[in-house]
């Protein structure tokens, strides 16, 4: 009986941690979508870490990342009303959500950070996008982009 308050406290704490994490994930998809929608290719490039995963492709050259962001903006790509579908810490099987290959598996194992997260968003048109993001106290880094699908 004595333990009940402690358990309750733990439950509340865990719930608030989860809700903090969710709001961080929402903040990340909102920020990245905003940068795309407002045509800020340079900021997106600066936020992107190399190597970068685009679908099943590992991009290792900085100019290719810059070309990708600037071209999608030039052709008018927009992420309309993004809503966070789910956010999860990257695990040993997460690579399969991008592409099931040895290269992508190695990318996840070798180049992502312990706290990197896989974020799935849905747009108002029903399209989905997967993002790989690491959000620390001072920096937000994009490691991967898949979609829209």
């Amino acid at each position: 009986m004595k333990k009940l308050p402690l358990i309750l406290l733990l439950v509340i704490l865990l719930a608030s941690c989860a809700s903090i994490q969710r709001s961080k994930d929402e903040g990340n998809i909102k920020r990245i979508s905003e940068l795309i929608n407002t045509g800020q290719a340079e900021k997106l490039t600066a936020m992107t870490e190399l190597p970068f995963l685009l679908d099943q492709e590992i991009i290792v050259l900085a100019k290719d990342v810059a070309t990708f962001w600037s071209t999608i903006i030039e052709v008018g790509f927009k992420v309309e009303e993004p809503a966070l579908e789910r956010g999860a810490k990257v695990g040993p099987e997460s690579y399969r959500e991008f592409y099931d290959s040895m290269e992508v598996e190695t990318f996840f194992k070798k180049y992502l950070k312990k706290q990197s997260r896989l974020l799935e968003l849905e747009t108002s048109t029903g399209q989905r996008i997967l993002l790989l993001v690491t959000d620390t106290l001072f920096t937000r880094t994009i490691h991967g982009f898949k979609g829209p699908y």
Partner: protein
Amino acid sequence: MKKLILTVSLLVLVLVCGFAVPNDVVYSEGDATVKFQEGYMEDVYIGDVYDTGDTITTGYDGFVELDQEGLALKINPDTVFTLQEKEEKGETTGVFSLALGSIKFRYDRITGKEPMIQTSSCVAGVRGTEFSVFAGADGSALIVVDSGQVEVESEGRAVQLTTDEGVEVQPGEPPGEKFVVKLDEIQYKSWNDEKINRMLSDPSDAVQNILKRLNFYIENASEYHDLYNKLSEKLKTERQKMVELLNREGEEAAKKYDAEVVALIRDNTRASFLNNRYYSLAALSLRRYVAGRLYILLKAQYITKANDSGYQHFLKVYSDILSAFETSIVPYLVEADI
């Protein structure tokens, strides 16, 4: 288990036979990084020494000059360049692999043992003292000779170039007609932009050429892998025979058997392993720097019209490239390659 064997073999190979001549960085500026064979990356610094398996990448403002005992290599901006080696006619030959960008080579003297130069579309044998190699985004190559001679080979056809001559090679095709040209007339950026525009105007053709070249690498990698397996088995048997001989007739007889029989098989086993790696890494380079970059360009351009029939056709052929690569090349790669 297969991967473990490959990793161990690779480490042994690196320890036993590093690149014959080290490459010293004598100058570096701007964005330039090196990815070591072991898989980790760092910035390029003057005084660094690079060996087989190391890849140097320069950014838009990057420039690196390497010195290799009588050879100066000037690695220009936006270039991806790897030091490799291959077994040719019983000897280990260095290979300068240019995946993208341009490099100027200047030899103080020619010894006849110069490394080969490989791009995604051709191999160049050095007979000259000063020449440049350009590797385009579509996998094509342009070789221009300032002085001396260079032999350019692709798809079984060779072209000899002399001073002020150049030739272009498209991926999966033999060298084109040689032409008269001065090196200072070639601007890499405009030449490469032209390649990109052509590739984007007919992506299906470009991706088919890449698939053709990939199949060439797959065929060779697989051939050397089969040979390696056969020779490894033979080596095991002959080593066993040597042990039996040692027990039966003594050390002298065993040493003689080792020198006369085992050593030759050991050399051939090593050579077949080396050549399997050479073709596998050439395929990886083609997949990463030619096929992958084409995918990125097209993906970005068609992101709002993914149902375009031309784009869909490209994706279909591209998926053949991915599956051929995964099935036939990935088994020969290790994590450090990625």
